[in-house]
Each structure stands twice: as C-alpha cells, then as structure tokens.
C-alpha cells in the first residue's frame, strides 16, 4: 500500500511538474519537490560531421558537472538548458567521431546557438575508454529496443552479391527471416506488414527487390538506419510491431565526391556535391543479368525471361537561414520481368516497385522550439500480365499515399522535452484483377483518409529516471472508429554499468496486407472497412543494458505482445471487395527473450545475439480454431557477427546463423479431386497446422576487404571477396508435395549452395 501511495505521489508530481522547471527527487522514502534550478540559459544547435557537413543523428551533448545531457534528433539538432554564470565544460560525442570539449560561460537568459563539428575517427583500435563512454550514452537513452546501424557496418560484412542493410538487420536478436532469399523482417512475432518502413519520412509499402532477395535500400545512399523493435514512441503509428526509419544522406557540403561499386550482379554509383548553402546527392544502381544474357544470346536460346531491377535516390538540401532548412528527396525503384512469345500467345510481364518523394522544412521558432513540416508522397505498384491482349490475365495493384506531417519538439526546461504533431494521409488503393477485356474479377478503388495526432513528454526528474508517457489518437475514414494508443517508456540507471528499461504501448494498424511470404512481388494492401476492425497490439517490453567488460555491451530484453484482429489471406479469393471476402480474422500472441552481447570498438568488433521466442495465432476458420505457430515462428535463433581489422589493408568479416527450422504442416493423406469429364488430380490433406519443423537452419558466410590505391595517393579503392554459405549447407526453403509420382512424396526445396562473389568499390 505504501509503495502504491508513493507511486501515486510520483504520478501526481509528474503532472504537477509538466510544463514547469520544477523537479522532484526521491530522498530516502520521501519524494521531494525542488524549485527550478538556475537553468535559465540555453545552448542549442546542430552537430555535424566536420568533413562532409552532414548532420549527426544521435550525438550526445553532455555536461558532466551537472549530470545533464541531450541527444541530437533526426535532424541533428539539440537544445540543452544550462545554468548561467557558471563555467561549464560541454562534451559532444558520437560513436565513430572524436569527442570534442567546449568551455562555455553563459550569461543570464542567453541562448547560444551554433553548429558543432565532429571529426570522424576509426573505431578500430581506438581508445576503448572514450568509446565506451559513447556507448554508455547510447545505452542510457530512454528508448527501449532501439538499434542503430551505420552503413559503414554493412561494408565489411559478407553480402551475397549485394550490400544490403536488411541482411544486417536480420542478424539482430528479435529480428527473423523466413528464408535467406527473403528480405522480409519478422520482428518479435510480427510479420513484415506490421513494420512501418520509412525512407526520409515516406512510407515504403514493399521494400524488396528480386522477389525479396534484396531490400530497396542502396547502402551508399543511406546516412542512418534506426530500427525500433518494439515499444516505439507515439510519434510513430499505423503499424503493430516495429519502426524502421531510414535517412538518406544530405550530401557533402564542402567537397564533390563519389563512389562507384562494381558487383557481380549489379553496380551502383553515388555522387555528392555542395550547391548553394547545401548539397545535392544522387545514387543509382542496376542489375545487369538481363544485359549479359541478352548480349550472349542466352535469353532467346534458353527461353528465359528478361529480369532486372534498378533504383535511384536523390536529395537536395539548403540552409535558408540559421533557423530554416529545406530538403527535397526522392526515390524511384522498379523490378521488371518480361517474357514474350507472340506465336504461342504466351507472355509474362511482372513489374513492381516504389516511388516516393519528400519535401521538408525545418524551422526553429526559438532555440527551444524545433519544428519540422513534411509533405511526402509514396506510390507502390505491382502489375502482372499473363498472356497477350484479350487472352491475358491481368493484375494491377496501385497504392498512392500523400502524407503531411507536422512535428514539434519543445525543449521545455532542463528536465523535459515535449514532442507533438499531426499526420494526415490521403490514400488511394487500386486493385483490378481481370482476364482480357472481361469485366474485372476484382475492382477495388478506395480513397480513405487517415489522421493522427500525438503528444509525448520525455521527462527526466533526476539523472537516473527518464519517463516518457505518450498518447496517439488516430483513425481512418473507411471505418468509423478511433484508435486511442497510450504509450509509456521508463528508464532507470541502476548503476553506471546497468540501465533498466521498460515500456508499454497500444498500437493500431489500419492497413492489411494480402501477400505470399515466399513471393513478395504482388503485395496487396487494403484499408479496414465496416466488415473488419483495425488490428491491435499491446506490447510490453522489459530490458536491461549492461557493460560487463570494457568495450562490451550486453543487453537483455524480454517482451510480450498480444494481437487482436490479425488477418490471414483466404485461399484463392475470387472477386469481393470487402475485407471479410479477402481475409480470415483472428488473434495471436508472441513472447520471448533476447540476449545481445556486442563489441563495437577495437580491431575485433561484432556481436553474438540469441533469441528465444514463441509466436502463436488463433483463427476460428483455420485448423478448427486451434492455436498454431506461423511459419516464421523460431524457437531458437543465434547470430554471430564478426569483423576483424587485420591491418590497414585487410578487413575480414564473418556471419554465422543458426535458427530452429520453420514450422510446416505434415501431409497425412491425399484425395482425388475430380471435376466433370476430368481425370482428377491428387490434393494433399495436411494434419495439424504447422505442427512440425523443417531441419534447423544454419549458414556461415565470410568476406575479405582489401583497400588499395587506384590512380591516387590515398586508399580510394576496395576489393571485396565474399563466400556465401562456406560449408555448402543447402538449407531447406520449404517442403512441397509431389503428386506426380506414385506414391506421392514430400521433397525439400533447398536454398542456395556455396556462392563466391566479388566486387570493386572506387571512391573519388
């Protein structure tokens, strides 16, 4: 009862202190309300890379004397309230940069605004103590389940022919994949459609190339990747599980430079140059299997389809004044598969991709009031044509998403940071399935409006506690209901080496995906309607971050997620435009524990991750309403990632993956399905849904990167050698039933064998 009263008092004091500079602290068994300190001055500004002028996301600004600090936001901006008339030493640091120290003495009510430049430094062989301080800052950040990846981390790891940020994310504990040729992210029991994937603020609906083998993100164009695996804050919404926030490079503000990478299956190039008071950056890549096969005549002689994918990223930034910045960015990517044989009336055309554009304006109303206004548009398309002209089967799926975001960050005082904002999205979903000129089997044309408002308050009553309550309210016009999503995250620094974190939140999802996980080229997204409600997840996360040894961090997180109104695609839907025609509806849950031992500095870096997880679904119309694991449920998942900086020229990389085999249904019987005048065919009948497991999945990849000088005095080139699946263990992709034999047999369809690849990267 006494504890309850104390908790009640804490909550009371929290609301009392909100919006003021009053702080309270726990002294013994008493909660004490303290008057505001003399934090009447403010230091604020952008933290930038000294070589390129790029803003640095997640840099820490700290005043050790006061045990007070701030972290730069997605725009690289911070504001920190400090007492005036005091000599203070400010430390600005970020992993991969040299820490800088600034001595300041602020006058009463002074608002000092300036940019701080951090010089990059190699994290290999660096001073471990300094680096662990930076890691400590990250460890003590209030957000749970957050993983930040720098594109440089991707470079020295095995890449299976193409550098891909998703491949690295799949090695993080809690993130699973359905197969090695799928870039889909299955996070803590959630399917890929439950992840909000943002590229410079624009939603990407199908972030895959090559039927899911690669993601759409060109690692040369990316500045920062942030994955929040669960318990994500109120500023994000519309998805049940996780947020992947990818930020493209702004471009080099000082020098023109570029990079060309020649790979076995694709090449890519990036160029950045200063322009005006800003920069422009352009990146492009394309596969050339089709060109090689065409040139050698193999396309025609083998009768195989033409296939290629490409993508282009561009970004233009300008600083209009010390208070105003604008950025315009765009992405376009497409996969194309074509085959034509007019004589036999045979043709296949498959084309899918994304286009997105984003315009943003960042404005400082004052040094404590940071605002960002975004207008972005996203277009996902997927078209499939079998046959020619009137003899064809046509599938045409389009999503247009026009979204406005207005976000405000208010650095209230020395203890609070309030974030609030709105989102308005106009969607257009278009799905047409037809045969020739026949009336369409499906003709869906929906234009719902989504609106959301949120507020959250990061409140640090003392140096140990950070409490971030938040609320998001949203809804979609296609179904008259509001999602009210309260969220809270709490951090407590138990000791210098141990930080405890917890979060709880409700999450709603209004868009549902009909997709085949083995074939991601024709995803169909549909908004909720009067026949099916929005999906909902309740997420509970509890974690501890520690530093057991110098240079190592060790995180443990456990989670529980309860899902309602999940959907599964009905088999072979014909016609129907209501959600209930397309989907079964059911519930589910997942829980697990993740262990993450990481070493980020020194010559040997990497991590070991282990996840123990359980995921279950329950649908009245599936498997007689019994509980079943989805195919991606993995009981054990172990990932080992190592990078060894051998010397100035050689860097070696290695990844090893072990996972419980995916769930599958055992076929127990067959029946002969006859139709009038038809000789019938055997249809397999399965037992308990996903009751068995395929053999465990495991794979070892290695890589070597050699740096050298090419027509230059500095090392500007890298030769990369990869061996994918070193010990040639062909993992099982799925188990199929072959009814063409007598008796029918089950056979394992296996994945890739050993695959050596190489690539050359030249910087200029």
């Amino acid at each position, binding site marked *: 009862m006494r504890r309850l009263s104390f908790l009640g008092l804490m909550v009371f004091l929290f609301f009392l202190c909100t919006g003021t500079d009053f702080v309270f602290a726990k002294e013994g068994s008493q909660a004490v309300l303290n008057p505001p300190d003399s934090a009447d001055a403010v230091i604020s500004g952008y933290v930038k890379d000294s070589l390129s002028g790029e803003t640095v996301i997640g840099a820490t600004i700290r005043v050790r004397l006061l045990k007070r600090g701030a972290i730069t936001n997605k725009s690289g901006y911070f504001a920190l309230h400090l007492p005036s008339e005091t000599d203070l030493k400010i430390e600005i640091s970020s992993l991969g940069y040299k820490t800088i120290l600034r001595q300041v003495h602020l006058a009463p009510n002074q608002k000092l605004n300036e940019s701080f430049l951090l010089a990059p430094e190699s994290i290999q062989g660096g001073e471990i103590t300094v680096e662990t301080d930076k890691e400590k800052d990250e460890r003590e950040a209030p957000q749970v389940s957050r993983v930040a990846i720098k594109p440089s981390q991707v470079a020295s790891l095995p890449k299976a022919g193409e550098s891909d940020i998703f491949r690295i994310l799949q090695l993080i504990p809690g993130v699973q994949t359905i197969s090695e040729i799928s870039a889909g992210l299955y996070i803590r029991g959630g399917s890929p459609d439950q992840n909000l994937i943002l590229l410079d603020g624009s939603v990407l609906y199908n972030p895959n190339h090559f039927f899911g083998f690669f993601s759409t993100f060109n690692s040369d164009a990316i500045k920062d990747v942030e994955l929040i695996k669960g318990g994500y804050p109120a500023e994000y919404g519309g998805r049940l599980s996780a947020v992947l926030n990818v930020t493209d490079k702004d471009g080099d503000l000082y020098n023109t430079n570029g990079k060309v990478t020649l790979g076995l299956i694709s090449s890519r190039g990036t160029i950045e140059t200063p322009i005006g008071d800003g920069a422009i950056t352009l990146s492009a890549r394309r596969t050339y299997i089709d060109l090689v096969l065409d040139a050698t005549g193999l396309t025609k002689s083998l009768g195989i389809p033409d296939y290629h994918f490409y993508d282009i990223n561009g970004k233009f930034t300008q600083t209009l004044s010390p208070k105003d910045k604008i950025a315009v960015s765009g992405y376009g990517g497409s996969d194309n598969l074509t085959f034509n044989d007019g004589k036999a009336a045979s043709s296949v055309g498959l084309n899918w991709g994304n286009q997105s554009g984003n315009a943003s304006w960042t404005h400082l109303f004052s040094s404590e009031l940071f605002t960002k206004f975004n207008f972005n548009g996203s277009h996902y398309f997927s078209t499939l044509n079998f046959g020619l002209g009137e003899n064809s089967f046509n599938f045409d799926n389009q999503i247009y998403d026009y979204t406005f975001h207005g976000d405000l960050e208010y650095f209230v005082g020395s203890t609070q940071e309030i974030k609030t904002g709105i989102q308005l999205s106009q969607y257009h979903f278009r799905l047409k399935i037809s045969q020739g000129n026949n009336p369409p089997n499906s003709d869906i044309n929906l234009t719902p409006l989504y609106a959301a408002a949120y507020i959250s308050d990061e409140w640090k009553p003392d140096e140990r506690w950070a409490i971030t309550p938040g609320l998001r309210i949203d809804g979609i016009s296609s179904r008259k209901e509001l999602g009210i999503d309260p969220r809270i995250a709490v951090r407590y620094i138990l000791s210098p080496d141990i930080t405890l974190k917890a979060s709880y939140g409700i999450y709603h999802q209004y868009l549902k995906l009909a997709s085949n996980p083995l074939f991601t080229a024709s995803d169909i997204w549909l908004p909720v309607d009067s026949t099916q409600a929005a999906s909902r997840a309740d997420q509970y996360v509890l974690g501890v971050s520690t530093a057991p040894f110098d240079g190592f961090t060790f995180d443990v997180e456990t989670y529980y997620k309860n899902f309602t109104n999940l959907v599964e695609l009905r088999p072979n839907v014909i016609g129907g435009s209501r959600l209930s025609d397309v989907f079964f509806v059911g519930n589910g849950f997942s829980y697990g524990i993740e262990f993450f031992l990481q070493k980020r500095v020194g010559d040997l870096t990497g991590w070991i991750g282990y996840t123990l997880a359980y995921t279950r679904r329950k649908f009245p119309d599936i498997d007689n309403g019994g509980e079943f694991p989805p195919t991606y449920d993995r*009981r054990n998942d172990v990932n080992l990632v190592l990078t060894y900086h051998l010397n100035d020229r050689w860097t070696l990389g290695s990844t090893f993956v072990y996972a419980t085999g995916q769930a599958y249904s055992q076929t127990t019987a067959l029946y002969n399905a006859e139709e009038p005048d038809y000789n019938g065919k055997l249809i397999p009948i399965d037992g308990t849904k996903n009751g068995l497991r395929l053999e465990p999945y495991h794979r070892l990849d290695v890589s070597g990167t050699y740096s050298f000088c090419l027509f230059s005095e500095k090392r500007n080139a890298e030769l990369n050698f990869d061996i994918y699946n070193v010990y040639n263990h062909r993992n099982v992709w799925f188990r199929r039933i072959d009814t063409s034999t007598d008796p029918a047999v089950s056979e394992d369809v296996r994945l890739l064998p050993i695959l050596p690849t190489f690539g050359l990267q030249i910087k200029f």
Partner: protein
Amino acid sequence: MKSFIIFSILILSSFLAGCDGAIESQYTPQVVVEGFIYTGGGIDSVILHYTTPFTESYNDSVFAITGADVRVSDGVKEFILLPGNQKGRYYLPSDQLTVEGGKTYTLAVKTGNQIVTANTTAPMPIKYIDLDSTFPKNRILLLDTNNAASFTYNLYAGPVDQSWRKYMLQISSLDTIYGKVSTNIFGPPVDTSAYVRYSFIQTAPHIILYSRLFGWYGSNRLSFLALDSNWVDYKRQVGYGERTQIHYQSSLNHINGGIGVWASAAKDEVTVFLKPKP
C-alpha cells in the same frame, strides 16, 4: 561480473527451454464425395471414396466406397441412388428426377458409422447470347499458330439470376485425331494432359475464348456454366493447372462429415471445330 554470470545462466536456461516437441499428425480415413448436378439434368454420378494415406499409391478401386446408403432430397421427396457399374459410383435413373433451378438438393451418405451431408441450390437456366455473331455459321474456328494471340472470341450468356453468381467455361475435346494444340509454359495454368480445360471463374457472364483453353484440335464442346457457390469454392480448392501445390483448405469445404464437392450449375453448350490455319 556477477551480473554477467547470472545472465549467462539465464541464457543457458533459455536455450534449454527452447527445446519443444513436434506435433505428429495421424492419418484418419475421411469420406470424399464428388457430385455435380446440372439444372435440367439428372443425377448421373456421385462418386464416393476414402482419402488415401500419404505414403500409399492412390487406387480408385481400393479406396472406393461400396455399399453406401446414398440419398438425395429435393425438400419434398427423397430419392435413393443406385450403385453404378464402377465401384464407388452411384446414380439415379434419369426418369426419377430432373434438377430444377432455384431448388435446394440435399445429399446424405451413410457408410458404416459415418454420415456425410451437403446441400446445393441449383442456378436458374442460362443460354448463350448471339452465338451466330460470335462464331462463323459453320462453327469452324481457325487458329493461326504464328499469331495465336489473335484468336479471340467473346462469349456472352444470360440471364443473371443472382448478382453474386460466378461463371466458367468448360472446353471438352471430343476427338483427338487432329493433334494437340501447343501450349507454352508461360500463360494461365492449364492441364496439358487433360481432355477438359476450364477458363478462370468470372464474376459476370462474359468469357473470352482463347487458344490456350483448347487442348486438342477437332471437335470441342464449349459449356458455359453458371456455378453455385459450392462449385466456386471447390474450384478455389483444386485450382486450374495439373499440379497446383494447393493443399486442402477446410475453410472451402462444404461437406459435413467429409470432404469433396456436392455442387450444381446451369449450363448451355455449343460444339465448335478447331483447325490450324493453313
């Protein structure tokens, strides 16, 4: 260090907790029903057999169900089906019952301790519309094998009795002496060994006849079918091609106590002669 040891023990415990057992499924014989009836027709054949264990060869005569009590009711009168010449086949003499559009027919099968029932409501009759302007008067269709894409005929039928009604074209090869129509692998799925091919199911009585729907040159019967929902679900279940990798879906099953199909359709037929263009 102490906390690290605690965490290590936690990891080890988790790993051990991660060993869970598989759920083996056993074979249980189920009654499979296959019965299709047409508006204006009789009940020519209801086929009954048991499912086959996965590890055994399918043999119609081994798994056929003999001695079953098979009845059909039209809501007024109950009819008892007779065993046919082949094992597992049951029929009703043609003079006993003519299927009427709009009527519901209930099938009841009793074999041993198992009772299987299903209902179908027969669609109202349909007719081709304006076939003479669709096909040449002699009903001879020429296929230009160098330009198969130009082979296109729009077939219409009516009237529409229900807004949700679905339609399908069945093309039956009546002779095989004129050879096979070549079919490339890229295109809508077809069974290259079958004498019957089906169009995709359509949501309106307008279906395009194209060359891939023909398996053989020569006489072909084109049956325009208006389907009941059982037939549609069954087609969704069994797919279009030879081996579709579709597994049995209980959500599409409408046979109580068993699996299979008890479905009805209204149909109109026309016979054409397909020739390669010289």
